[in-house]
């Protein structure tokens, strides 16, 4: 396998770094509402929530605001461990159930888009890097650059104007109209397509760039001199190395999945994690904000760790020089 003691050491160091970062985030999320100027109840519960004096007393004891800080932190961590992320007064529901509800749909459309983006982007990107002189390679690269340099919401808006407003082929809002598979597909085609196109062009460019830089290294030429056919060089040697930067990005994609594709959801009026977070920001719904923030951080860290492990497996040299 090739992973040696050094790589293992490197991984452990990295994991510690991530844990450290997470603890910092946790502390910030915990301390901020309690330290910020103003009424801590308002900071914890969200602004503009009407609370009767009795309710305020209840909340004070529930949050333990009268006990010392380290005790509060302990209780806070215990609650988190039990997946109790608090209650949102704006949405009249516990934060965790809100997140779970929205997460399912978000996972669906973003997950499909990520997968499609991999299928559509990586293969052609690899080929375009390998045969970078061909006209179609240049053409596709230009296209990919064009798409990557457009703000995501802009592309969604243009797609919306053309296919929904002008032609009327697709619906204006929602994950579905009636809860059946045709309606869901009809509603999700445009959002998934736009997202896929973005992921695919980015994957394409990275893969192409990686293959290009690998191509110029010594080892492919060496292997070629041994008489090994071109496509075996590509699949057997180059691909393994070129894919490494991409793995990190794709892992991050999944990590950030839970922040939802905010702009897609706004333009296509979808009720996913992105709009939940956006609404929470606008209505100062702090429980939802802190809850989703923590969840996203956890997933991103896990994704990072996973990608680090994958990188070590694929290239045992990783981390040796650090």
């Amino acid at each position, binding site marked *: 396998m090739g992973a040696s003691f050094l790589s293992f050491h490197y991984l452990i160091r990295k994991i510690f770094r991530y844990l450290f970062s997470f603890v910092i985030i946790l502390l910030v999320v915990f301390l901020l509402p309690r330290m910020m100027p103003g009424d801590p109840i308002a900071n914890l519960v969200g602004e503009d929530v009407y609370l009767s004096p009795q309710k305020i007393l209840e909340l004070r004891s529930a949050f333990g605001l009268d006990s010392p800080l380290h005790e509060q932190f302990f209780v806070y961590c215990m609650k988190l461990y039990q997946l109790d992320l608090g209650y949102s007064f704006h949405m009249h529901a516990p934060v965790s159930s809100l997140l779970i509800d929205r997460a399912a749909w978000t996972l669906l459309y973003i997950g499909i888009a990520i997968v499609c983006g991999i299928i559509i982007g990586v293969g052609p990107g690899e080929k375009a890097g390998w045969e970078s002189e061909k006209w179609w390679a240049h053409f596709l690269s230009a296209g990919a650059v064009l798409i990557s340099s457009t703000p995501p919401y802009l592309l969604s808006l243009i797609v919306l104007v053309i296919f929904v*407003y002008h032609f009327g082929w697709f619906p204006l*809002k929602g*994950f579905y109209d009636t809860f059946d598979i045709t309606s869901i597909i009809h509603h999700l085609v445009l959002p998934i397509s736009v997202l896929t196109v973005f992921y695919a062009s980015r994957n394409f460019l990275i893969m192409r760039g990686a293959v290009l830089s690998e191509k110029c290294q010594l080892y492919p030429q060496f292997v070629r001199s041994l008489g090994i056919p071109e496509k075996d060089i590509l699949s057997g040697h180059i691909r393994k190395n070129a894919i490494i930067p991409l793995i990190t990005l794709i892992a991050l994609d999944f990590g950030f999945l839970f922040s939802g594709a905010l702009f897609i959801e706004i333009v296509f009026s979808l009720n996913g994690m992105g709009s939940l977070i956006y609404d929470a920001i606008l209505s100062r719904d702090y429980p939802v904000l802190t809850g989703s923030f923590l969840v996203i951080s956890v997933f991103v860290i896990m994704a990072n760790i996973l990608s680090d492990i994958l990188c070590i497996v694929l290239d045992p040299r990783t981390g040796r020089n650090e």
Partner: protein
Amino acid sequence: MVLTAAILACCCLPVMAEEKILRVATTNEVKSPAFIGDYTLGLFNHISNPPLMQMDQNGKLIGLLADHYEVSSDNTQWTFYIKENQFWSDGTPVTGDDVAFSIQMYGKSVPNAGWIGETLTDTAVDGNKVTFTFNKPYTNLALEFTSYSILPRHIWESVENPNEYTSTGPYVGAGPFYLDNVDLNAGKVIFKRNPYWKGTSPAYDAVEISWFKNEDAAAKALESGAMDTYWKYASSYPYAAVDSLKSSGTFEILEKPTSGLTFLGFNLKKEPLSDISFRDAISYAINYQEMVNIATLGYGRVPNRGFIPPAMDGYISTQAMEYNPETAKKKLESAGYKDSNGNGIVEGNDGKDIVLDLLIRNAYSREAELVKEYLEKVGIGVEIRSVEDNTWFELKDTYNYDITLTRTTPWGMLMHANWATGYFDSRRTGQGVLHTVDDPVFLELCDNILATTDTTLLNRYAQDVQNYYADNLPGIPLYWKNDITPYNKKITGWYSNPLYGIMNEFTLTGVKPVA
């Protein structure tokens, strides 16, 4: 041959039994499936759970769940007679107990109805008669009771915290339709026909209200035929989309003046806004015609100093608002606000440049931009602070602004002592009100109005209120507007009232597709 025909007929039958759905587009969004807690659902649930009273198309109060009411001579005791033969969608009859329970529940558990909790002393049920006794006289209780949906006691009495209760449905209702499903993922609320409804049977089997994130999307849905009509609480069809709608040919556009308007409010606790001459000067600085053109695209008119538009009962014609920057500058000077250091901004009594803090909700950014430009032209500096709705509620309640730009709704104009007094009387609280006037003359006027039901007296008071507004300018009306309601030509039977537009029982039971 006969067999083929029979088979064909059998295939067609299920198609013919397809549900007839009335589709309504709106931009009022439902955020959570809280029947009472969610603001928009609280508007929609009037359909399924009719309140006691409603307004007819001329603005007169008539019964909805209640047939009629009686008031004691001192206006502290109100007796409502519930209509017979009304049933909840689960088959149980509507009784006075339901009404008594609902009103008490609102007073106890719903923050915005706190006034009920504070003033209602007794509720007595006698068959279909419900008598409410208050500890102070109310002359406009019937109006207040157009906004509280009546809930079935046998379902809601076991709910511990009605304001926080969430469920996607179905909810038991007594209207022609009951709320079947709150579908946040599809962005719509579905009402289904109430099987126990004994009134006029609606032509439609279901009503779907779909909300769109912005006006253009809703307008597009209307034009493409995906939606049958448009409704937004206390708002007109978006003016920018009217031309496009007209050219589609499927809609008849009805234009009616409304009592809702947009105005500039003053923090009367601060200088120099407490100075009437200053406010008067400002009133000449605004280009009202341009405001009307830009904000209403011509579907409005320049207002009068009396604030109250002709759409309201009791309207008298006061002097029109005038745009004259020279007069504004002169008035500023003669009131003692001069620009002594030549930097283009006048100074106040403290010698410092006057730069007003203009607080607005995001929706009014265009009007605010214009106001800033107008005021700066006559030498008054303006800084715009644009905040979220909820933040605005908080800030204006704590008087954290100099001037603000906001609107009135038809309901708000009638609230409290009628004629927009609800917005200015310092004793009245509420989400949209400014409560800035504590002038005893004004407060006494409000109290007088609240204490009587004599129409001649009330008309005189109406005049007094408008003259007060014209002389004292607690708020400067920026424009009066007309509500545009699109009527789908393919459907007939539309009925519109000033409070809730087409969202009323007459419409829902009366509309049917044109044959």
